[in-house]
């Protein structure tokens, strides 16, 4: 096997040094009845070129060459080339969790830079070194709020990504955290503030909203914060489309922000790996889940970085830890850091403006062939369209033109009927594609 650095002679000599007659001697502690005496039923050993061919075949069975208007939690953005040139360097790609800081300053400094950028972008004071993704990050944020407040319950806007809410339910159910969902307003697609107010009780640890929300609508974060805080609940804002932060005011009124940073240079890649991250006010530091990178000095006074406050974590606190998370998304966080460095503060704004312009044009152009919902509130790069035909029929027609239309909303929001779908346009969406989609819908 080409990955194994041993010659047959090496194996023989090593067994001799150990004093074993054969390699099977070393497996003798496995009871004979459980020893596998046959080959595993997996494909025969492939040469490298055969591996390539196998994946070319898989790849060819997926959509390529389609214009796509899908967003809904996974956003297509241009990935500057140097993200991979740099993050694929063996020193980053094949390094371990930086528990030995003397030989991991590269990863550590990059994580410290990541944390700083996330703070600045979200308007929070501290950020961790990543979570699995936005959905688990939001769930962890809710559990964190429960620990912080000592209360036990959460109020969730129905405009939070449906799959985020599913994940939250899974996390919350066995910890006995009751979840209450609050509906949205038909005109704006924003969470219904009156209903929200009514849903918050004295045992509500937090309110969780998403902005821009699942309909692409920007929530009135300040108003939600006021309501939540008035009743002593924390506000958690989940952000699924990170590029929105280039032009949309950060949720500074929130107590905790859970960000899915996939938009910052991470491939959509059929849904993962992505990069969640939790940011919050400094006072919640001790209840923060996940790894944290901190600045310190070495024995000679030089600046350096270490993983810190690990007394919150499972490997020290075991069943009393803030979370069971261990492995996170470090390499993806590095990609995010490089992406943000390439664009910088001016570029990120320009990028977000392009998204705004493309979505605005798309909403007007494609929207002319149906009805745009939730018009009374601002949106970023997504919009909800009610087509004349059912989404199923409309999308089937679009596919014939090599266009993947909007995400059908009927399953998660039956009240919107069978004709509503969620469309996304980013800087990668071209006017030609938008015009073609509009024409196809018209036909």
């Amino acid at each position, binding site marked *: 096997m080409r990955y194994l650095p041993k010659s047959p002679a090496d194996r023989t000599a090593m067994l001799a040094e150990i004093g074993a007659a054969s390699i099977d001697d070393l497996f003798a502690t496995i009871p004979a009845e459980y020893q596998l005496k046959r080959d595993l039923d997996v494909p025969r050993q492939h040469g490298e070129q055969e591996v390539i061919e196998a994946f070319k075949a898989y790849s060819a069975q997926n959509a390529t060459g389609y214009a796509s208007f899908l967003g809904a939690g996974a956003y297509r953005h241009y990935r500057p080339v140097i993200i991979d040139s740099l993050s694929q360097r063996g020193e980053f790609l094949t390094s371990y969790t930086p528990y030995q800081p003397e030989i991991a300053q*590269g990863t550590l400094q990059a994580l410290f830079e990541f944390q700083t950028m996330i703070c600045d972008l979200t308007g929070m004071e501290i950020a961790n070194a990543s979570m699995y993704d936005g959905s688990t990050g939001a769930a962890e944020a809710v559990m964190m709020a429960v620990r912080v407040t000592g209360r036990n319950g959460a109020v969730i806007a129905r405009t939070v990504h449906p799959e985020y809410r599913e994940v939250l339910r899974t996390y919350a159910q066995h910890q006995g955290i009751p979840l209450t969902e609050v509906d949205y307003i038909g005109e704006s697609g924003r969470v219904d503030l009156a209903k929200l107010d009514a849903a918050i009780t004295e045992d509500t640890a937090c309110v969780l909203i998403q902005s821009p929300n699942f309909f692409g609508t920007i929530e009135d974060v300040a108003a939600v914060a006021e309501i939540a805080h008035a009743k002593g609940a924390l506000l958690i804002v989940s952000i699924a489309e990170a590029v929105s932060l280039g032009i949309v005011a950060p949720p500074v009124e929130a107590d905790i922000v859970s960000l899915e940073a996939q938009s910052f240079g991470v*491939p959509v890649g059929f849904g993962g*790996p992505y990069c969640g991250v939790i940011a919050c006010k400094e006072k919640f530091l001790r209840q923060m889940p996940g790894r944290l990178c901190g600045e310190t000095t070495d024995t000679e006074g030089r600046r350096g970085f270490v993983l810190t406050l690990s007394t919150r974590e499972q490997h020290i606190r075991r069943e009393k830890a803030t979370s069971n998370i261990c492995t996170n998304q470090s390499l993806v966080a590095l990609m995010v850091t490089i992406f943000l460095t390439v664009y910088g503060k001016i570029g990120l704004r320009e990028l977000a403006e392009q998204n705004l312009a493309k979505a605005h044009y798309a909403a007007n152009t494609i929207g002319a062939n149906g009805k745009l919902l939730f018009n009374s509130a601002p949106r970023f790069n997504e919009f909800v369209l009610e087509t004349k035909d059912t989404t199923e029929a409309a999308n089937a027609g679009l596919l014939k033109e090599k266009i993947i239309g909007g995400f059908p909303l009927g399953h998660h929001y039956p009240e919107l009927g069978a004709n509503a779908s969620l469309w996304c346009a980013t800087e990668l969406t071209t006017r030609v594609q938008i015009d073609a989609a509009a024409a196809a819908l018209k036909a």
Partner: protein
Amino acid sequence: QNEGLIFEKSSPGKKAYRLSELDVPAVDASTLLGKSVRKEYGALPELSEIEIVRHFTRLSTWNYAIDLGMFPLGSCTMKYNGRVNEAVARFEGIAEAHPYQPESLSQGALGIMHDLSQYLIEITGMDAITLQPAAGAHGEFTGILMIRAYHESKGNARKKILIPDSAHGTNPATAAVVGYQVQNLKSNAEGMVDLAELEKLVDEDTAALMLTNPSTIGVFESEIHKIADILHAKGALLYMDGANMNALVGKTRPGDFGADVMHLNLHKTFSTPHGGGGPGSGPVACKAILEPFLPTPIVVRKADKSLGFDYDRPLSVGRVRMFYGNFGMFVRALAYTLANGPDGLRLTTEDAVLNANYIRAKLEGYFDLPFKTPSMHEVVFSDKLQAKNGVKTGDMGKRLIDYGFHAYTVSFPMIVSGAMMIEPTESESREELDLLIDALQQIAREAAENPELVKTAPHTTRIRRLNETAAARNPVLRWKAPPSSISLTPDSAAKEW
């Protein structure tokens, strides 16, 4: 070369980006967004492309990595990451597949999930699997959820999970997250499960035992089937932590020896790169009795032979992550499996175990070996002999850095005081092992003859031991612009840098 923080290198007006020309009318953000428009951008840096390339290239040179040498980290399974895996993960149809694109246009992605699932089921000897969990601990969470759902379906969720004192911290943390009490199971003199003690503790309130096998001291639980029998007799289940699966693949199957549910770490056993701490992937395989409880969706072959997602699973524990998991890691794990084949997978395991035993044979006598039971893929020594001179396992780990290696695992497992936990993996050549052995023997000598040298290690790194206490006491978790940096004089820039 030194290299400041990226923020310290920023100057207003530098750019590393240029967008495509806008092909639709420009819009006025304030008009469209109103008061939701952003005004402040904080410290996001402004630099040119070459400065960014240099920054991250320079940072990278401060890292140690598998591509540079050995990580003898026990339990972490730092092995070679095949580069073809990175290449195939970037194929357009794979990297640019949207999770919501129509199933008819996702047959390749579904095929990858389906095929990997089949191979992992075969490798573990289980009946069903989910690829959704994002890492090992997330897999544990999923598995224990499934156990809870199983017991609930029988009318009683039960109350407690038994966990050996040798377990990874994630095990008790996971049990707690799922709402179980943790009951500690003391290891016996061989560092293994004490059957009598187990028999005593298992009762009708016991949901499961979480067991790592081989154990965290690298020893196969020879009486694993008896352990399973004891649990099953009381209706409890056996959860196997698959962190050490690198010792078993192709040689034995957990499904055959009694495990009911287990997770795999694709970033360990299946060689997806650690990337400085992630991403990982933690598929959970289970016996048929637990299949109804798997998270949604699962990949199924439909009546028309095409692949699709099944969301209609009423007994499911629900979702543990949006979409389908860390798909990119499935690609790499599948590429690894294909590259190995049945013979390669078996030889990999054999070489991993051979390497650990070789190290054990060569270092016995130099270091205390608290458990004499035969080792599988890792071996745990202790610093007992060296501690007499005040040299602790952590010191020797740091000293190993001076010899060109990463430290071994220094503070785990907790059942061994002053543990020195060494897992070479199959990726190390005999030549590299001999260098490690030479280095550790030399360190043992140094600990005897010149303990101060070891206690102040490392000596050859860019930076010396870091003050972790100060970092935790007064946490500085982000960069803040110094007041002076606002008005740099023309001359000061160079000095700042």
